[in-house]
């Protein structure tokens, strides 16, 4: 990805279509526990689609299914028309727990993908990696081990690790959870900037309402019972966005709408 440029509309890749997807598992005493029930939803390409829901409503499982790590009991997932059967470099996932391999340096982590698929020569991959690391302000951390990086820096290295394979879809599973709110806000801005330059189709999973509103073109609200996606909220806040947008009237109205959906199912008050 030498120099990220705006993709034209038609050849936008990364359209995810899901038809009555279902997955359940058998717990100790043999009764089936459903994790995803008959879920049908479309994620259009070139957008920052955010899936939001309470922790434990099956958001991560949905991401694992799209990434091809898990097989569904029923239903179909297709990306740009091709059914998903196994993991592939066209949709790379950034996990909640950092998945950088601690025994490889940051650069080795980033060039692992292209080299293992021998998409580039080692020299080419290293130069691409350095380009990306420089863009992410990590150039002089290239030969450090992940253990020596801060939480925020690890996340940026992981995004670089994914981008070097120019995937069609970026799947991020609550990547900024556990970081303090300040680092989290800065990283959100970081990803927004990256997204607004490349329009790379993104599936962003979060349980934080503010994060969803700030990032999303569309918010898909995932409910717990039944676990699937029923509501979609259009977020037509202007782009490029910066944190000032969180103090505008339009933001507050959208927050109000989202709160209604969120509380529709679970009136959790004591």
């Amino acid at each position, binding site marked *: 990805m030498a120099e990220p440029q705006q993709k034209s509309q038609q050849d936008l890749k990364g359209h995810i279509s899901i038809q009555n997807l279902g997955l359940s598992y058998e717990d100790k005493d043999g009764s089936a526990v459903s994790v995803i029930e008959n879920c049908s939803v479309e994620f259009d390409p070139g957008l920052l689609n955010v899936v939001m829901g*309470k922790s434990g409503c099956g958001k991560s499982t949905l991401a694992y299914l799209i990434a091809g790590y898990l097989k569904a009991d029923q239903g179909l997932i297709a990306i740009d028309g091709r059914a998903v059967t196994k993991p592939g470099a066209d949709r790379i996932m950034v996990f909640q727990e950092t998945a950088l391999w601690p025994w490889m340096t940051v650069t080795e982590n980033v060039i692992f993908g292209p080299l293992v698929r021998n998409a580039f020569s080692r020299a080419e991959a290293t130069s691409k990696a350095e380009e990306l690391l420089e863009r992410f302000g990590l150039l002089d*951390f290239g030969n450090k081990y992940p253990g020596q990086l801060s939480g925020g*820096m690890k996340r940026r290295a992981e995004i670089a690790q994914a981008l070097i394979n120019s995937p069609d879809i970026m799947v991020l599973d609550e990547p900024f959870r556990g970081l303090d709110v300040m680092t989290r806000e*800065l990283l959100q801005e970081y990803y927004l900037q990256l997204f607004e330059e490349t329009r790379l189709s993104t599936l962003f999973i979060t349980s934080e309402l503010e994060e969803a509103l700030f990032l999303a073109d569309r918010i898909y609200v995932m409910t717990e019972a039944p676990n699937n996606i029923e509501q979609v909220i259009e977020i037509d806040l202007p782009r490029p966005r910066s944190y000032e947008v969180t103090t505008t009237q339009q933001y507050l109205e959208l927050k109000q709408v989202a*709160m209604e959906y969120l509380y529709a199912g679970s009136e959790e008050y004591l």
Partner: protein
Amino acid sequence: MTDKPVIIDSSTDARFGHLSVQNVSKVYDPLGAHVEALDDCSLEIPAGEFIAVVGPSGCGKSTLLNILAGFDNLTAGQVLIDGEKLATIDHPPRPGSDRVVVFQNGALFPWKTVLQNVVYGLVVQNRFPESEANEMGMELLARSGNLDRIAGSYPSQLSSGMQRRVEILRALINNPRILLLDEPFRAMDTVSKTTMHRYLLEIYDQYHKTVFFITHDLDEAIFLADTVVVMTTRPGTIKLRLDVDLPRPRTRETMLSQRFLELKQQAVSAVHEEAKKAFERGERELA
């Protein structure tokens, strides 16, 4: 929440819990690394006030809380509580049940049931025989969202929201002058966090204890507190003090009101600026 509990007095003109922090500074390992955590902090917290302290990581919020709670001492200045000396250079503060802390990752004793946790303070100070303390514990649990149904379970069986509620009750039953909360709702998702906000506000409206609340989240600070204090990065000092005149009781609508927005606009740039400095310094330190 009908009748008042026998032991927790919540007379409206809360006489106790007036905290005055006077030019407090704190330096760790003065001879060695000489890390300056707090630099000349001064803060007046009238009795019964809900104050929220916001700031980037490493701005000394927790250091201040540790001094108020009595876990650590200051290296300059002094702290008074209701006029008496709490902490001075030669009079180190001692932890006590008048200033109880609710911890960030929760500190319910996993090997004690919910009831045993709640009454632990009363029993260990032998202010009450165990049977009487248990009665009070059950009554408080029942009245605070009928939690008496989980009195016999162990903390590991509860959701993090439930654990946090029990921990607040464990502090409250000792009739403390001040409740010290160290980012108690940090790792919770939006729905549970909002529910906990309602729960905490309800407890505050009823018992009117002084609350010292630490958070990273500006929205949470403005929504909950009477005063919001923004701290600078290390060495931490008070950068901005915001009086939140939103009406109480606070509801979800308050969060969406115009006044809330104005207050947020006043503080958000200050908080964001400090965050950027902390973020850059963090990067440099690691480089």
